[in-house]
């Protein structure tokens, strides 16, 4: 790709980008949120037409739009936003647009068989080809997306943050598949904000910043992290977790949250724990272990058995409104479907949960719009949301910046407890560091935080205390300092039957 330019209304998303990918390599694309990575790959996949520049394939210039043209050239794509059709089955999603068919009649058995084979290759034979995609978990949807890309037997596969919805184990699986592909000469463009992954799988790295290429062809394995981060952010950022308060610092502080015997049949059982003021508690577990549902249950989005006590008051289940009024806040897992009003401005998205703060007089519900936009302005600057214009529709922001706005929603009002479900999904390194600091600052101000993340280092680095969940039960609890990644992974995966010694570790 040479000197690609893509202009969106009001933004020059790509401003002369060069990219060169060789057959059989894993080419990593790095850049901050909003740097233009997704836009670039959408041009490669034919979803956008470039305003300037040309794309050469095997030396010859090609036109890639519409998407069918790109597919015709052997380019398959896994998009950042899951682009699956909920109402269709797994098979139908995978073969959408290139169904095996005779006279228009799809050959379903054949497609199902091919699907089963693809899923097995991805290590997910348990997903049934006829299952409806809408009923799958986000992680499984991601797998289906991948299977779809593989179904094209492409020369170049583009993966836009494929690992964001995956846990450690799944990522290992993914890498196995990628190595498999590259050994057959397929090129892979890989985008991720997790630098460890780049080191593990990548061959060469291209770094984007503000729509421009700032570095080409760096060696993925041995370019120092600090160099990469500096290239991405343009400054020296320390990729580190904020310091933790001393162990036991929370001992005497009041309990913000007490969960007793929380049970939702078929999902999780007998979950009990507490969070004290100023404490960050991490939930570690595999995808599908029930972490999100525990969080949603605490938040009142589900009706579990058991008891939730916030700040000494019992939370009646079944109403998020009550939960919010009592002082909880939730940053949900799927931001597009669960958190964002895509058509609305960043400002409106930020103030959504705290609207009643800007009413004067309160009984009339009249919005003081000046106060509202001032607050939105303040928060979006504090979170460094880019571009820094809170009036933009949030759908034109990059994924990571959208995530910041979701977090910002709960900063507009004083909270007692923040529930964070995968808060850094899709957030770049620089912003992550800021987010970590922010969460820690909030905790230091005296609120409790419950953190779910599929990235074990993140849980270990940020949380004070870690609960390990397996199949809907808490199997271990320990201060974060006492655990390391291997130990957590062991706990998460080994079944109790094989390792009865774990029984003792169970929290009661």
């Amino acid at each position, binding site marked *: 790709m040479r000197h690609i330019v893509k202009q969106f209304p009001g933004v020059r998303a790509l401003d002369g980008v060069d990219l060169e990918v060789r057959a059989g390599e894993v080419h990593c694309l790095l850049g901050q949120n909003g740097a233009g990575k997704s836009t670039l790959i959408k041009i490669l996949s034919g979803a956008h037409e470039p305003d300037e520049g040309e794309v050469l394939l095997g030396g010859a210039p090609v036109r890639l739009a519409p998407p069918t043209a790109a597919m015709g050239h052997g380019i398959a794509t896994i998009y950042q936003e899951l682009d699956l*059709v909920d109402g*269709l089955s797994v098979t139908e999603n995978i073969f959408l*647009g*290139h169904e095996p068919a005779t006279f228009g009649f799809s050959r379903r058995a054949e497609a199902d068989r091919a699907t089963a084979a693809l899923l097995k290759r991805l290590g997910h034979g348990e997903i049934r080809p006829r299952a409806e995609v809408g*009923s799958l978990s986000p992680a499984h949807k991601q797998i289906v997306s991948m299977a779809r890309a593989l179904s094209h037997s492409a020369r170049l596969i583009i993966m836009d943050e494929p690992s964001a919805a995956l846990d450690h184990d799944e990522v290992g699986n993914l890498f196995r598949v990628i190595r498999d592909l590259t050994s057959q000469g397929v090129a892979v463009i890989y985008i991720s904000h997790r630098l460890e992954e780049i080191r593990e799988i990548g061959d060469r790295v291209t770094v984007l910043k503000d729509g421009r290429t700032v570095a080409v062809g760096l060696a993925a394995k041995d370019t120092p992290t600090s160099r990469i981060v500096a290239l991405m952010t343009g400054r020296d950022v320390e990729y580190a977790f904020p310091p933790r308060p001393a162990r036991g610092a929370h001992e005497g502080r009041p309990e913000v949250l007490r969960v007793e015997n929380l049970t939702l049949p078929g999902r999780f059982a007998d979950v009990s724990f507490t969070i004290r003021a100023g404490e960050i508690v991490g939930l570690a577990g595999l995808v599908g272990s029930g972490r999100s549902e525990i969080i949603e249950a605490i938040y009142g989005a589900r009706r579990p058995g058991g008891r939730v006590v916030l700040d000494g008051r019992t939370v009646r289940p079944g109403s998020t409104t009550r939960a919010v009024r009592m002082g909880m806040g939730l940053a949900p897992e799927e931001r597009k479907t669960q958190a964002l009003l895509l058509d609305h401005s960043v400002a409106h998205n930020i103030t959504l949960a705290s609207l009643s703060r800007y009413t004067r007089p309160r009984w009339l519900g009249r919005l003081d719009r000046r106060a509202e936009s001032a607050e939105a302005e303040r928060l979006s600057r504090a979170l460094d949301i880019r571009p820094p214009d809170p009036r933009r529709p949030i759908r034109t922001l990059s994924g990571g910046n959208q995530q910041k706005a979701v977090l910002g929603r709960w900063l507009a009002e004083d909270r007692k407890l923040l529930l964070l479900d995968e808060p850094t999904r899709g957030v770049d390194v620089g912003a992550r560091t800021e987010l970590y600091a922010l969460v820690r600052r909030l905790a230091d101000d005296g609120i409790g935080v419950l953190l779910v993340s599929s990235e074990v280092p993140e849980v270990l680095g940020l949380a004070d205390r870690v609960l390990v969940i397996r199949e809907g039960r808490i199997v271990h609890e320990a201060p974060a300092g006492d655990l390391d990644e291997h130990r957590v992974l062991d706990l998460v995966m080994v079944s109790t039957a094989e390792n009865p010694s774990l029984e003792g570790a169970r929290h009661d």
Partner: protein
Amino acid sequence: MTEVDQAAPARPRVKAAGPGGWLGRLGEVRHLGLVAALVLLAIVGLVTRPENFATASNLVSILALASTIGVITVGMTFVIIGGGIDLSVGALMALASVWATTLATQSYGPVVIIVCAVLVGTGAGLLNGILIAYGRMVPFIATLAMMVAGRGLAQRMSDQRTQLVQQDNSMIVSLSTTRVLGLPLLVYVFALVVLLGWLLLNRTTFGRRTYAVGGNPEAARLAGIDVRRHTLMLYALSGLCCGIAAVLIMARTTTGSSTHGDLYELDAIAAVIIGGTLLSGGRGTIIGAILGLLIFTVITNLFILNGLNTADQLIAKGAIIVAAVLLQRRTLKTPT
């Protein structure tokens, strides 16, 4: 048009899997509610009018009554699953029936009449599709305009009169009067349209792509589907169904008239929705829509068998719709 669903998150976490095939089972369970409603209505019929309701001829009547709008419902199901809506169906049927019964058309004989009705319906449907897919008009407005203009054109062509099917063309009318195995021919036409519609929706790439176009047009586009052309075809298909329905209504009433198909759009949409298709597109079944339609037809039949007056009919109809939907919901919660 989202259904508000507070206790559980928006994604339908229907209890998964098992060997039976998840989609298949959902389908069955969903339909089960409708079938239960139908059975209940039948019981009411048997109890209140034992001597009339369960007779063969009454059941044939119900099928005959359902066939015209049934054919239209099949087309509407496609359009709604594909993320659109078609308000013009009643008007297009009227227009096709009028066009096909003008003196000029009738002079060519029954085959030309049928071809004319089908072509007029398909053509007008194509126009809908062009306005929506290429003119980028909102389906509601585009088909509303077509509905208004279609009725106007039908009135103009017929000079606001009812046009009789002439004696020479009584072959058309025989669709309604000739019976094979006790059923009038038009019921077979209806059944055939349903069968073909079902095959098209469930067994062909066209059908499956319809779900994609309605459920997530952006994803469909990225998967290389020509969303515009597909949309165009959906409206043409709906128009085609209106043309076929026009033939059936000519057979049944022996006339073409600009008043035919009054409020069919509402009935057809209601049948599709009560059959479990989302108004926002991407989900739905033909079987459900047809069951929904049969419920409406049986309700009317029961009312008249029992001699209810209009006012009471309307009140009861409203109540039954609510009851049927709540019943369906209950059945969904506790599947067999």
